[in-house]
């Protein structure tokens, strides 16, 4: 009985340690989401829960609401950063996501506080979201992320924040963004207001290439991406890419779908030159493209 009671007390204690730095974020209709007081005056939450850009408020556990200003957002990693004046609650105590092991007991917390309990179900290497965000480590959870839990902290058994939970990046599984990634993205958003991504200025559609053509040209893979739009004066246009070209290899890697292309266009590639192998008029053509920076939504 003693063992169970002390586990129970430890879990409730972990909730109580983490709870004071959790806020409710009112940035969409009906259901608020959860935010973490990351450092004095800075709140981080899940980008997909921020539907409005003005009139945002955050609400602390004691029920006080304060206006919040959107500092920047990164749909790629599903993170948004808000600035809140006079936020007199403690910033979150951060843990080390590198110390996580499969099977570790963890808590997901929502504003209130509300709690959900489970384990780390899988860990994986660096991965890229479908929206192009670079996540340092895959952290998959066996627990329920209840409505409003997105943007809230993943808390270890000691009550330290080891990740930010979101249901906005995958449909089938529950994920946390490791604190390492959150810290990196928050820094970049505070510095620049956005996170850089590489940009070619093309629209593409996956296509299969006939086997005789592949064999004749010695192409890897079984398909490519047909160029259906070229942004005038964009990076690809300047390199000579044309409508109807089929992109087969980018930066030395065969590409079969849009994700393969995204994966070659991290923020670190901006300004660098990549080679592209295309099929044009039944022949191979090689081009060198200087990667641009993706224009931000709403930016002129």
């Amino acid at each position, binding site marked *: 009985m003693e063992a169970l009671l002390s*586990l129970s007390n430890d879990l*409730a204690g972990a*909730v109580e340690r983490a709870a004071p730095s959790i806020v409710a974020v009112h940035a969409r209709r009906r259901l608020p989401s959860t935010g973490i007081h990351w450092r004095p005056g800075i709140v981080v939450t899940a980008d997909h829960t921020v539907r409005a850009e003005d009139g945002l408020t955050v609400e602390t556990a004691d029920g006080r609401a304060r206006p919040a200003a959107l500092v920047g957002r990164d749909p790629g990693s599903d993170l948004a950063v808000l600035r809140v004046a006079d936020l007199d609650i403690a910033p979150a105590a951060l843990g080390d996501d590198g110390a996580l092991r499969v099977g570790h007991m963890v808590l997901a917390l929502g504003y209130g506080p509300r709690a959900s309990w489970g384990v780390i179900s899988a860990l994986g290497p660096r991965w890229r979201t479908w929206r192009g965000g670079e996540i340092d480590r895959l952290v998959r959870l066996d627990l329920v992320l209840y409505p409003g839990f997105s943007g809230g902290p993943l808390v270890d058994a000691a009550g330290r924040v080891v990740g930010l939970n979101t249901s906005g990046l995958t449909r089938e599984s529950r994920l946390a963004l490791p604190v390492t990634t959150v810290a990196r993205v928050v820094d970049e958003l505070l510095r620049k207001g956005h996170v850089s991504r590489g940009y070619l200025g093309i629209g593409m559609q996956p296509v299969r290439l006939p086997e005789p053509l592949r064999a004749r040209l010695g192409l890897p893979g079984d398909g490519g991406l047909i160029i259906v739009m070229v942004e005038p004066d964009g990076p690809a246009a300047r390199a000579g890419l044309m409508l109807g070209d089929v992109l087969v290899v980018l930066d030395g890697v065969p590409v079969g779908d849009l994700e393969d292309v995204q994966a070659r266009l991290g923020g670190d590639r901006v300004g660098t030159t990549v080679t592209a192998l295309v099929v044009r008029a039944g022949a191979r053509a090689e081009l060198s493209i200087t990667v641009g920076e993706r224009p931000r939504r709403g930016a002129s």
Partner: protein
Amino acid sequence: MSPATTVDAVLEPLAAAAAGLAARLARVTVEVRGRGRGGAVGAGVVWHPDGLILTNAHVASGDVTVVLADGSPRRARLVARDVRRDLAALVVDATDLPAALVGDSGALRVGELVLAVGNPLGLVRALSAGLVHAVGPRAIHADLRLAPGNSGGPLADAQGHVVGLNAMIAGGLAVAVPSREARQFVREQLQG
């Protein structure tokens, strides 16, 4: 501490304690059967050794048959029912029944461990474990997987004290009637 030591020092006593608690809770949990020859429609908690059993109002709308932990079926008379609180009181002709230790739902903390026993999907006295998700005056929300058949069964804390009666599932959460409400119900309906 090596992983092996951790298992010996923490996990094994934990598993043993959980199993002990589950057995104790099962002894104070009854199965509530419908009037026909069907199986369990819900569960109930032995509230008093003299035969008082509490369940949900939606589980018992009249006299029912209950199956005690020793497997014996008994006729149970409905003596009080409060639909607003979703509570019902049944009485069986018995003395010295193993009765629940009732805890204080008002002292629950978010994150505390809780256990539920009931008859989900026809399983008799199945255990689920989870934790307190949120506490309100009229309901305890628990991050715990219930199924129909858990209704009326006990929600207990890590000491085995019954802090609520499981009443429904809402948005994946278990919702229980707090023990404070149940005590109030017993006071008003049966001791007034």
